[in-house]
């Protein structure tokens, strides 16, 4: 096992992150603050409570998800796309390091960064609402699990992409819409029945439901179904990555 290799990749990725840390933190914090002002204070005060939680607090888990999902995707996809783009990938490919170890280095770094950003948003939100997190430990585990899963997914996108547009494609055309429609700002039960049914095909619904459960103890969808969904997605990503490296797809010519 090439532990030093994994650590080298991890450290490199983290230092790349910290080089632009101000910017990578400032922008999610700013947009979260804006959401709280617009949805929480301005509109939320007219909405009242959902499932016994006041609206400003209700949107906190969804807001964290919104940022953390896109962050995980973009961190991980950029992490592997950039070396491909700049040519520095040669070194990783010629090193005695296995695909599993390479993936571990990049994905754990992306996960770390997303968890940090998620935590910062959580802290920011306490300036706007009173938060009582019912299951803090479970909340943190779920956050890590979700960041990890989407970092894996982002890693796949980064390997698949051969230009900058493709990197943006899935986050902006798939993940962001699905997150908005996945109950970040509302409860699925508020939708007409037909849309509720359709929502169950949206995997993000399960993430948000599980994550919101850790905050308020209310589950919209059975917790075990949600967590199983997350794990299925995680394993699907792992399998895809295994396949990618086995065939050298888009990395080796």
């Amino acid at each position: 096992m090439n532990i030093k290799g994994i650590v080298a990749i991890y450290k490199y990725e983290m230092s790349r992150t910290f080089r632009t840390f101000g910017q990578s933190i400032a922008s999610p914090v700013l947009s979260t603050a804006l959401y709280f002002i617009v949805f929480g204070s301005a509109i939320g005060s007219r909405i009242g409570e959902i499932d016994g939680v006041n609206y400003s607090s209700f949107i906190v888990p969804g807001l964290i998800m919104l940022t953390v999902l896109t962050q995980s995707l973009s961190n991980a996809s950029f992490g592997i796309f950039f070396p491909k783009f700049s040519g520095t990938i040669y070194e990783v490919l010629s090193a005695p390091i296995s695909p599993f170890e390479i993936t571990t280095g990049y994905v754990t770094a992306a996960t770390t960064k997303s968890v940090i950003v998620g935590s910062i948003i959580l802290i920011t939100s306490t300036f706007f609402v009173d938060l009582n997190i019912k299951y803090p430990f479970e909340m943190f585990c779920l956050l890590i699990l979700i960041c990890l899963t989407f970092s894996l997914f982002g890693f796949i996108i980064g390997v698949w992409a051969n230009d900058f547009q493709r990197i943006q494609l899935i986050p902006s055309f798939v993940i962001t819409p699905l997150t908005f429609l996945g109950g970040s700002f509302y409860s699925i039960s508020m939708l007409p029945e037909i849309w509720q049914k359709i929502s169950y095909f949206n995997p993000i619904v399960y993430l948000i439901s599980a994550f919101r459960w850790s905050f308020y103890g209310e589950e919209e969808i059975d917790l075990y179904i949600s967590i199983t969904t997350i794990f299925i997605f995680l394993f699907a990503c792992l399998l895809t990555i295994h396949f990618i490296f086995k065939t050298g797809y888009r990395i080796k010519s």
Partner: protein
Amino acid sequence: MTAILVKNLNKYYDNGFKALSNINLEIKKGEIFALLGPNGAGKSTLINIICGINKKKDGEITVFGHDIEKNYKMARSKIGLVPQEIATDSFEKVIDTLKFSRGLFNKKSSTEYLEKVLKSLELFKKRNQQIRTLSGGMKRRVMIAKAMSHEPNILFLDEPTAGVDVELRQSLWKNLYDLKKNGVTIFLTTHYIEEAERLADRVGIIHQGEILMVEKKDKILEKLGDKRVIITINKTSKNLKNILIKYNYQKKKNKLIFSLDLKNNRNSVSDLFKDLINNSISFYDVEIKKNNLEEIFLKLIDQ
């Protein structure tokens, strides 16, 4: 001892282009091997396959007996690669990028060793600078330092001296010699024939994906090296042409340039002198020139 063994290697790129065909090659431990060939011959492709950057179609490659696919960790841990293109994260510091390289190869960190490498490549003063603040030649040296950072047994250099000034090129050659002294095997590609002539123990010539010849450098020079004898005569005589009719020569003012086949006729030089003297053609300067690799190379790929 064999450092690298390539057997029946073929390579097709995804677009169907056949970049290498039936390559067989053995590199011995501790030698400097130079691969020469025109643009697009397949030099980089061959290096990249051995180092794990490109996939091969078939054939077998071992590095110190370790198969590069089945036992890739063992094989790659022996190899340092300086690719043809300079590729670095320009915002990274020189010392950090070396630490990264060393870590990737699972080596215990050693600032002491890395500083030694930096000193030998005259980069020590720049060690805490971002790579973007270095000159092009320095960046190339950083690439070389990265490849050396994990103490490889074999160093691949794909055109190491492209875009490097004369002074640095010579100091680089010295570096390579020092490495060789320490038992490092060196595989380099180059367009500068002079480089191969100066450095290499053996030279391989590749053209359109095929290896045309692999020989000891001296042997190639000897084998294909017709010698040219250049004689400067005092005054030309009218019947010069008749006297020299059996020779293959060119005349430039009062210089006569003879191409002599020394390999098959060991007396050719003395025969020529006899003919000149017997016909009272006096001369005051004699120069004997070997064909250099460049001419040999052009001759080979012409065929």
